[in-house]
């Protein structure tokens, strides 16, 4: 690992508000996304979806489809040259013998035009024997439950699925011994964290709060549906250009699927039109399979309906939880049982992370948390911004609030008093880093909305909640090169999901000692870029950012070494100010970076180029916390909840660019509002998706949003670039919980299911025995 020298002067403008570097091209529509890029001879693919949620395929008849003018081929599983095996979606891009969810691709029509391919899809006949779908999460766990998959994809548990899970977040640990339980084979994973005697601790508690919390399937609702193109280079290299969160991850997986050396696969990341966790290996295996089968360029761009029906949304959960406290408010024990619907594919299930996060940022003398991932006949689950955390925080923070209410304790003080100390163990045994939860709670406690909470009129209420996201630590490399014009090029393989690349520019500028407009960040494909992690888990600013900092510092040293020869003084006696390299104390004797760079690029020059390298892997985790404060109004006659105001305070370590950080905080809060009030993918009793369009699947819109106020809290991360943390996910975690607590304050009933629906609240607010 390259040592990172101390922070230089502050030329780079950390903490200055700047627009995203790609915002102009995006708002003017100039950006070319994966589905916009044309290629000579490109063929278009459309999927033939399964009509049934669970079925055995007898035959696929493509005769009529192949007769449609322009149709080149109709591919089924046998046509794709897949050699890898594993219990993962990517090894089964087309159903092999058994269909496991409605909408699952069964065949792929390839045609000269998208229209011809679509028309031909309707003419493909899939002869299938319908099987009973497994849809109910709890029933699926029972020992006698029918299996959601009759013929396993692999006989033994595959390691790749475990690797996918590790990509979420760096928590989990080994866990406690599992209990003997009589469960069906649909239960595909179990995790347990336990310490102390929870039963007796709860029995001795002065107050116990408990509840069963349900959440529903939620769609990531990115603007750009999944899309990828692929082709073969003359040397046989398979190239895939895709809307992906991770080019290197994608390359590695494609190599495994098709049995190719990774060096013969090249993945190009197209600009991402939103992803939120979903865009990690969904359409690429279909595209690559078709390219390898046909030896022609192929594109698959999902329609919105296909994207709803056949990708990887966040899974539904049932969380049973019981917490106990002393009269003083000291938390003594938590007992929790979490079941997550993994859907048809299980590699991205999130029960293990949720099991850690359900304990919150608190210290628990005794705990017993059991988590289950359960296979059903719905789409395979994927990641969605802080996977597992909004569900877990909703359950825990609702009960913490209830505990405070029953003990007559201030909800902020109750939380503050129970926060885990840095260095003490988390429930998975990892040591708690400093997480900023205290500072976030203190920030909302001081807010006028909180201090004035007793003054709201009847039917309105103020609620709060706190949550955190553990973040991740990934190996990363970066290059920082001095260009002939004296500017810097930063080369990374990170795909820009949320503005992180704009942050990279600031990091490099600060580390090198120039203004950010002197830095160009270039995201290259897997053939050209330094090794980079996938954008997910709030990883890249923290991990790649550190590599960029090191690369820029390296480049700075190389430049100063060269300048020292020119000035004939020691490098340590030089400084860089306003783009001028000069001896300290002699401002008039400087040379511009451009002039120095020109000398370095002379043909026949004598000095090696300035090209800094950074290679890092962070030593510690840097979780980000966020507290939400919500003002809600409840209409007793209709059950309708209106959010009047939302305040979010988040610890970001150090705000590299406050404008972009606030954008992330707003986005997470808005998605939290969607979790809390609107979003629910609904299947019928046969497993058919009913809410597969934006007409039927409601997401928050600008017109339905309250004013959202952001408060940036900075508790620096020891290993982060200039103290920065990964900040993309924390803002969504406690947003639904805070809304639920505000609703409880306004309506007098505590929501137990997300989304909080007017009809249910209307019923429960009428049925409660007396006003609370």
């Amino acid at each position: 690992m390259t040592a990172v020298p101390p922070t230089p002067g502050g030329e780079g403008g950390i903490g200055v508000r700047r627009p995203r570097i790609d915002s102009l091209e995006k708002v003017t529509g100039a950006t070319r996304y994966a589905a916009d890029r044309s290629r000579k001879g490109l063929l278009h693919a459309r999927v033939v979806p399964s009509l049934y949620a669970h079925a055995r395929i007898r035959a696929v008849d493509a005769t009529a489809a192949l007769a449609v003018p322009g149709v080149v081929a109709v591919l089924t599983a046998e046509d794709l040259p897949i050699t890898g095996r594993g219990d993962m979606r990517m090894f089964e891009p087309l159903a092999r013998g058994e269909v496991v969810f409605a909408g699952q691709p069964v065949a792929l029509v390839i045609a000269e035009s998208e229209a011809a391919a679509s028309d031909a899809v309707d003419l493909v006949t899939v002869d299938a024997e319908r099987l009973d779908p497994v849809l109910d999460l709890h029933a699926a766990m029972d020992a006698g439950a029918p299996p959601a998959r009759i013929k396993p994809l692999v006989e033994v548990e595959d390691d790749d699925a475990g690797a996918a899970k590790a990509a979420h977040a760096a928590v989990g640990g080994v866990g406690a011994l599992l209990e003997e339980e009589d469960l069906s084979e649909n239960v595909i994973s179990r995790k347990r964290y336990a310490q102390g005697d929870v039963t007796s601790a709860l029995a001795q508690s002065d107050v116990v709060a408990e509840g069963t919390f349900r959440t529903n399937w939620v769609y990531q609702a990115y603007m750009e549906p999944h899309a990828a193109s692929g082709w073969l280079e003359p040397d046989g290299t398979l190239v895939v250009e895709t809307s992906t969160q991770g080019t290197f991850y994608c390359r590695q997986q494609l190599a495994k699927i098709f049995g190719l050396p990774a060096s013969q696969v090249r993945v190009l990341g197209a600009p991402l039109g939103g992803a939120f966790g979903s865009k990690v290996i969904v359409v690429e295996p279909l595209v690559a399979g078709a390219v390898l089968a046909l030896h022609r360029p192929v594109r698959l761009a999902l329609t919105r309906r296909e994207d709803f029906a056949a990708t990887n949304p966040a899974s539904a959960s049932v969380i049973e939880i019981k917490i106990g406290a002393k009269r003083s408010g000291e938390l003594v024990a938590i007992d929790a049982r979490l079941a997550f619907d993994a859907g048809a594919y299980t590699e991205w299930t999130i029960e293990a992370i949720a099991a850690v996060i359900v304990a919150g940022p608190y210290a628990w003398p005794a705990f017993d948390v059991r988590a289950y991932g359960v296979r059903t006949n719905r789409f395979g689950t994927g990641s969605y911004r802080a996977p597992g955390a909004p569900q877990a925080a909703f359950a825990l923070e609702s009960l913490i609030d209830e505990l405070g209410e029953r003990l007559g304790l201030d909800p902020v003080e109750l939380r503050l008093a129970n926060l885990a100390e840095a260095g003490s163990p988390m429930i998975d045994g990892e040591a708690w880093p400093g997480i900023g939860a205290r500072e976030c709670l203190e920030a909302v406690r001081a807010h006028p909305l909180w201090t004035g909470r007793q003054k709201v009129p009847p039917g309105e209420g103020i609620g709060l909640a706190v949550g955190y996201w553990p973040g991740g630590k990934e190996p990363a490399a970066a290059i920082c090169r001095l260009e002939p014009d004296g500017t810097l090029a930063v080369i990374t393989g990170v795909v820009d999901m949320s503005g992180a690349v704009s942050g990279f520019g600031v990091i490099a500028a600060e580390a090198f000692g120039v203004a950010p407009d002197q830095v160009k960040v270039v995201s290259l494909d897997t053939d050209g870029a330094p090794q980079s992690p996938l954008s997910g888990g709030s990883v890249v600013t923290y991990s790649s950012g550190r590599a960029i900092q090191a690369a820029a510092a390296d480049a700075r040293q190389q430049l100063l070494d060269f300048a020292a020869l020119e000035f004939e003084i020691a490098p340590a006696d030089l400084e860089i100010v306003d783009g001028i390299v000069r001896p300290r104390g002699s401002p008039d004797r400087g040379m511009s970076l451009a002039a120095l760079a020109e000398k370095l690029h002379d043909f026949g020059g004598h000095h090696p180029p300035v090209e800094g390298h950074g290679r890092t892997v962070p030593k510690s985790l840097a979780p980000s916390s966020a507290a939400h404060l919500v003002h809600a109004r409840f209409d007793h006659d209709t059950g309708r909840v209106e959010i009047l105001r939302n305040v979010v305070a988040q610890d970001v370590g150090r705000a590299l660019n406050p404008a972009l950080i606030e954008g992330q905080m707003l986005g997470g809060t808005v998605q939290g509002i969607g979790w809390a009030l609107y979003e629910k993918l609904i299947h019928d009793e046969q497993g058919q998706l009913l809410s597969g369009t934006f007409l039927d699947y409601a997401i928050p819109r600008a017109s339905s949003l309250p004013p959202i106020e952001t408060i940036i809290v900075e508790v620096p991360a020891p290993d982060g670039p200039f103290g920065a943390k990964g900040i993309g996910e924390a803002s969504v975690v406690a947003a639904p919980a805070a809304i639920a607590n505000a609703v409880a304050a306004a309506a007098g009933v505590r929501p137990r299911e997300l989304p909080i629906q007017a009809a249910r609240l209307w019923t429960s607010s009428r049925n409660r025995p007396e006003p609370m």
Partner: protein
Amino acid sequence: MRAFAYERPTRLDDAIALIDGHGPDARPLAGGTDLIIRLRDGSLRPRIVVDVKGVAELDAEIREEDGFLAFGALTTMTDIVVDGRVGRDYPALAEAALFVGSVQIRNRATLVGNMCNASPAADTSPALLVYGARIVATGPSGTRRVPLDEFFVRSGVTTLARGELVQAIELPRPTGRRGSVHLRRTRRRGHDLASVTLACAVTPDGVTRLAYGSVGPRPVLVLDDTGLLADPTAPAADKVRRLEMLFAGASPSPTSMRASPQYRLAMLHVLGLRAVATAIERLASGASQ
């Protein structure tokens, strides 16, 4: 999207001849905000789409005629929202039009198209019903006028005969003061299909007109001429009982995923009471006719 023929006639006779000649295989196209979606998702597969935007006799005008305000076949929701006469004399229609879709949708969607789709959830139907709208339909055998209440049959089905096109919608000019309002209850504000939609108009003679949608296969108009609902001093409990009688025919779908039938019915009553109260207030304040 399946291939289809596209025609853009310039004369009403030609448009009618095309619609008549192809019968159920033809679909007229005006705003296209429903048609294009249904062509794309394959739920409609016409052989021919007849674009009526080029027909000389059809326009987007809102014009004052003898005793009526008439809306052309191409009048958009935006045209309605910004029209001062509509805002003054038919505020519930302006309010309903503002609920339709988004700005882009309102710039394209037509009032006539909204009626011809005959969706039970159409935002503008209840307002048009309480204002006594009638449809002007022209077909191979001439032009006829149909009260809107006799136009709807069920979702997607109207009493239009083969070959008929709706040329305009006429609203009778108000004869005196009137208080009216449009309300709806959805899962969220803005772009969404309504869970319950309702309009109410109260006149000084004590007559209350209520129309509701999304609570049965077609929008329904009911009338209270006892004076009870319009009476600002009548006890709320009596009004609730009266509304129960008036809404007895409401039959929400038992299978909708948007809201349970019980909840929809309850909301129909809540909206009914609120709308009556607002209409009475507006009548008293004279803010609208």
